[in-house]
Every structure is written in structure tokens, then in C-alpha cells.
């Protein structure tokens, strides 16, 4: 039963075929048996999960269970959970216990969701492999010698390995979609401003967005229904009071839908098997009656530079709060106030985080600001304009989610340049604040999943979910064997 989608589990729970506690125990048993190999969880909270399951059962028995009531989920470890350790996979926050919940956690709790624990990730969400985690270097359930992607690698691997029914991740430059692609599951990055960032440990505040990782596009819509909506605590959200149903286009007819095929996303750096698989998915849409429109995004070649300059500039500012005094790692040194801060930060942060801080300081420093940060911000505007032009002609865009399938755990990690360049398929979506979903569209010759992304207009998650669902209904997923 643990391999079912949320909509299937809902029926089983409501028909009393299984109780919320029984379902929760099945996942906890699976975590006990399998997570030693996958290493997706940093913290498991069995007692709390069983208490939540008991409370959820009462609501189910009363016949008024919301969509996520009794559904066992897990949470990326950069989302604050009151009284449960939240580490962002960093030594800096190894013992950090938040005194408050992120808004998304309050919303999941009000639905009666069961939370199984906290999932590994790249340190402070900086990376695409989950190998920069200070605690659990998660493995890909399809091949334990490969990475799960990142930074939400724990979220994608846990869903893929049936260690939870669904998970929350966060996406700053592809951190939900790329691991979803590598692990053969579905991941949604909502429009910037759709989901409150309150309680999300900040990486790059103008790009960060929380979203779901699940077994289907429909499940992503169900979770988004629960977590979306205006929050007083997040000033970057417009006060949209109506609550759309993000599953309203499930079962949509693709006839007449205009799909943009942006040539630059199918560049030579995209692996041949990935390209063929995504093009075959576009052909499937065509067979459903969709119209394919060829488009271009000339600025894509500058997107990696723009993204890393903006995100690192914001990260260097956001991470200046870690001084070893109010919370986080405090070095055991004598000396001055300044000595304490330097030692605490140098001991607490890992190599990749330090690289991003250095790059951010470089981009913002006197004499370099206009050449780097200023130009990157200009490019952000240009990329947004190019997307607007494409969406004048199209309803959605389909791209590969990543140029390759999951790679070996020791590849790329020591080559930051190669690691950064692999993000070119996903970063423009964050730069332009758009919604996008990644779903599996094929497998390579070794059986590793290939993901495609459906990108939509701002605030139009319903269409990207509907289009991904239309493809999923024609496609047979091959589950990971563990």
C-alpha cells in the first residue's frame, strides 16, 4: 500500500481499508528496513507521527477528513518544524530546534497530515547532488551508486523508495525538479509568491520557493491546495484571497494546447537519450492534439552566470546571520567578538557554502558590482521578457529537466564548474518566477529515469499540473527496486 498515490491512499483511509496508524507504521517499518541504504532521512519522528495518525483517525471516523488527513509525508530539513531539529544539512545548524513552525507546516498540520521526519538535502540547499549534506549523503533508489540529485535529494529519494507518500522540498534553481527527474517522481516548483517562505531557511530570497514532491502531478496539486495562499509573514506574496483548485485541470484535453519547444533547451550538452525521450514526450502531446510551436530564448546561454551571481549574492547576505551567538554552531575559542564569529562560521559551513559566500561577496564588492551583479539583474529582466514573448505564442513550454540522468556519487562533486553548468535547464524558471513541474518521461538504457519539465505562465499551476497529468496517464512508470 505504501507505493500508492495520495488520491489512492485517501480512498483506502476513508473506506477504512487501512487506518492512519497502520499506514504510518508501514512507512516507519519501511524506513527502518530500507533507509540505511538510501539515507534520505536526517531525523525520523515516529512517536510524533503516531500521535498525529491517532488524531487524523478521529477526523476520518467523523467523516470530515481533508485531502491530506492521515497521509504520511516527510519534510526537507530546511523547513522549520517546531520542537523538531531542523539542520539544513549543515554542521552550523546541527542542534537547531526551531521555536516556531514554518507556515507550510501549520497548514499541513491543520489538514491532519502525518509527518514522518526530516529529509536530507545539500547543505543550505546549495548543490544538485545531496552530496554536500553534512549528515546524510542520500543515494538514488534506482542505483545506490548514483546521486539522487539535489538539493531536495532526500525528498525525491524518499518518495521514490516508498519511504513516505509525498514530501515537501524547496526550489531555488531546480532543487525540486532535478531530483524528481533523477529519482523518477514528480516535483512541482510553484510560482514565486504562491507558497509562503516563512520558516524556510533562506538561501536566495528572490528565488526560493517551497513545493511538493510526489508520485503524480495530481498529488502535487493536492498538496499545493493545502500549502498555498497568502501569509502575513511573507512580504513577497500578493494578497490573493481566492483559493484556486490546483487539481481543476486533471484530465484536461490537450487538443489545441500550444506547446513551446525552445531550441536552446535541446543543446548539444543534453545527453542524446534524454533529448530523444523528451522529444518523444512532445510527440505524445502532438498525438493528443496539442500544437507544437518552435521558439527561441537567446539569453539562455547567460542564464547560469546570472543565476549563480544573483543567488550567491543573496546567499552571502542571508548567511551573514550565522555568527555563533544567537543560534547555530559556536566555536570554542577565546579572543574577541570578531574571532568568535570567524571561527564559528569557518567551522560550521561546508566547502560549497563557503564558495557561494565568496562568489556572492565578489559579485557585490566595490569595483565588481556593475560588471557582475548589475548585469545579472539586467539579464533577469531580459529572461523575463523573453519568456513573456514565448507565452504570447504558447500555453506551456516543455524542456528536459536536466541534461543527463543521475550520475555517480563521486562525479562532479569536486568540479563546481561542471556542477553549476548542469543547472541550465531549470534556473530560468526561478529567475522568471514561473511555475514548472517535472515528471518522468522515459528511462535510459541502464534503467535510470529521465525527466521532462512543463513550464507555465505565472500563477497558472493548474495548467502545468493538468498537462503533466495528461502525459502521466499515457506513461507507465517503472518503480525503483530496493
Amino acid at each position, binding site marked *: 500500500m505504501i507505493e500508492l498515490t495520495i488520491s489512492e491512499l485517501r480512498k483506502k483511509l476513508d473506506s477504512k481499508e487501512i487506518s492512519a496508524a497502520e499506514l504510518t507504521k508501514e512507512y516507519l517499518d519501511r524506513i527502518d528496513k530500507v533507509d540505511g541504504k538510501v539515507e534520505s532521512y536526517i531525523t525520523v519522528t515516529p512517536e510524533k507521527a503516531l500521535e498525529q495518525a491517532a488524531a487524523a483517525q478521529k477526523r476520518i471516523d467523523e467523516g470530515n477528513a481533508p485531502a491530506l488527513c492521515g497521509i504520511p509525508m516527510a519534510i526537507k530539513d530546511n523547513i522549520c518544524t517546531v520542537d523538531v531539529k531542523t539542520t539544513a544539512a549543515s554542521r552550523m545548524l546541527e*542542534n537547531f*530546534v526551531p*521555536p*516556531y513552525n514554518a507556515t507550510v507546516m501549520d497548514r499541513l498540520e491543520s489538514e491532519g497530515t502525518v509527518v514522518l521526519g526530516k529529509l536530507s538535502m545539500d547543505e543550505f540547499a546549495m548543490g544538485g547532488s545531496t552530496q554536500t549534506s553534512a549528515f546524510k549523503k542520500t543515494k538514488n533508489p534506482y542505483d545506490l551508486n548514483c546521486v539522487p540529485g539535489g538539493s531536495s535529494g532526500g525528498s525525491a529519494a524518499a518518495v521514490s523508495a516508498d519511504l513516505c507518500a509525498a514530501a515537501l522540498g524547496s526550489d531555488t534553481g531546480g532543487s525540486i525538479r532535478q531530483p524528481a527527474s533523477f529519482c523518477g517522481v514528480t516535483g512541482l516548483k510553484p510560482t*514565486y*509568491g504562491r507558497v509562503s517562505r516563512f520558516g524556510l531557511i533562506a538561501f536566495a530570497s528572490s528565488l526560493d520557493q517551497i513545493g511538493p514532491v510526489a508520485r503524480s502531478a495530481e498529488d502535487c496539486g493536492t498538496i499545493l491546495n493545502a500549502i498555498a495562499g*497568502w501569509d502575513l509573514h511573507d*512580504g*513577497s*506574496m*500578493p*494578497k490573493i484571497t481566492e483559493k484556486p483548485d490546483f487539481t481543476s485541470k486533471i484530465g484536461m484535453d490537450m487538443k489545441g494546447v500550444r506547446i513551446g519547444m525552445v531550441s536552446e533547451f535541446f543543446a548539444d550538452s543534453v545527453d542524446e537519450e534524454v533529448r530523444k525521450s523528451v522529444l518523444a514526450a512532445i510527440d505524445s502531446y502532438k498525438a493528443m492534439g496539442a500544437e507544437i510551436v518552435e521558439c527561441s530564448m537567446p*539569453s539562455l*546561454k*547567460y542564464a*547560469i*552566470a*546570472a543565476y*549563480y*551571481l544573483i543567488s550567491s549574492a543573496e546567499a*552571502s547576505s542571508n548567511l551573514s546571520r550565522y555568527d555563533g*551567538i*544567537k*543560534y547555530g554552531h*559556536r566555536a570554542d575559542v*577565546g*579572543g*574577541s*567578538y*570578531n*574571532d*568568535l564569529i*570567524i571561527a564559528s*562560521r*569557518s567551522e560550521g*559551513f561546508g566547502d560549497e557554502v*563557503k*564558495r557561494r*559566500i*565568496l*562568489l556572492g*561577496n*565578489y*559579485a557585490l*564588492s566595490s569595483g565588481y558590482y556593475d*560588471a*557582475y551583479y*548589475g*548585469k*545579472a*539583474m*539586467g*539579464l*533577469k*529582466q531580459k529572461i523575463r521578457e523573453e519568456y513573456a514573448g514565448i507565452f504570447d505564442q504558447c500555453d506551456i513550454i516543455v524542456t528536459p529537466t536536466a541534461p543527463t540522468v543521475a550520475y555517480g556519487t563521486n562525479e562532479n562533486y569536486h*568540479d*563546481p*564548474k561542471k556542477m*553549476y553548468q548542469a543547472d541550465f535547464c531549470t534556473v530560468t524558471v526561478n529567475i522568471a*518566477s514561473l511555475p514548472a513541474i517535472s515528471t518522468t518521461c522515459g528511462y535510459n538504457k541502464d534503467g535510470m529515469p529521465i525527466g521532462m519539465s512543463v513550464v507555465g505562465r505565472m500563477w497558472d499551476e493548474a495548467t502545468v499540473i493538468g498537462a503533466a497529468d495528461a502525459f502521466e496517464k499515457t506513461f507507465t512508470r517503472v518503480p525503483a527496486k530496493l
Partner: protein
Amino acid sequence: MELEMVRYLSKLAKLEFTDEELERAVEDMTSIIEIMDTIKDIDITYDPYKDNHNVYLEDLRADEAKPSLDTAKLLQNAVSQENCFVVPKVVE
């Protein structure tokens, strides 16, 4: 990137590196800056007036005092505390 620049950035970032780490940081940053330098090819200017659409000043709450977290909760993650955050002596 030159060693002196990495030293300067480390100082700004309040980070310190061993000599071996510094050497690796120079290598990594040089390689990363190569990617960043691609944007030098493009003639583009940022227009700040186009870019304020994510600020929703009208939706801010009224400026009224509201209850906050209590002191014990706020201090629970501080390693050194005596009902306040304890820092090394900063004034002689």
C-alpha cells in the same frame, strides 16, 4: 582569481582558510569566475524601476504591537546564555 582577492573576500565574509584550503579556493573560484565572465559579452543594463513588482506594501499589517515568542524560546538555541545572548567582551 588571485590569492590576494580570495584573502580579501574571506575577510569580508568572516571566514578563514588554512593555506591548503586557500590554494584550493583560488583554483575553484578561478574556474567559477570563468562561467560568470560570460555575461561580460552582453551589453545590458538593469532598470530598477521595472523590478519592484514583488513588493506588496499595501498588504503589510498595521503597525500595532502583537505578542511575540517568549524569551526562553528565543534563547533556546543560543549556546551561551544567561537570560540574554552572551558575547565576548567588546568594550575595554
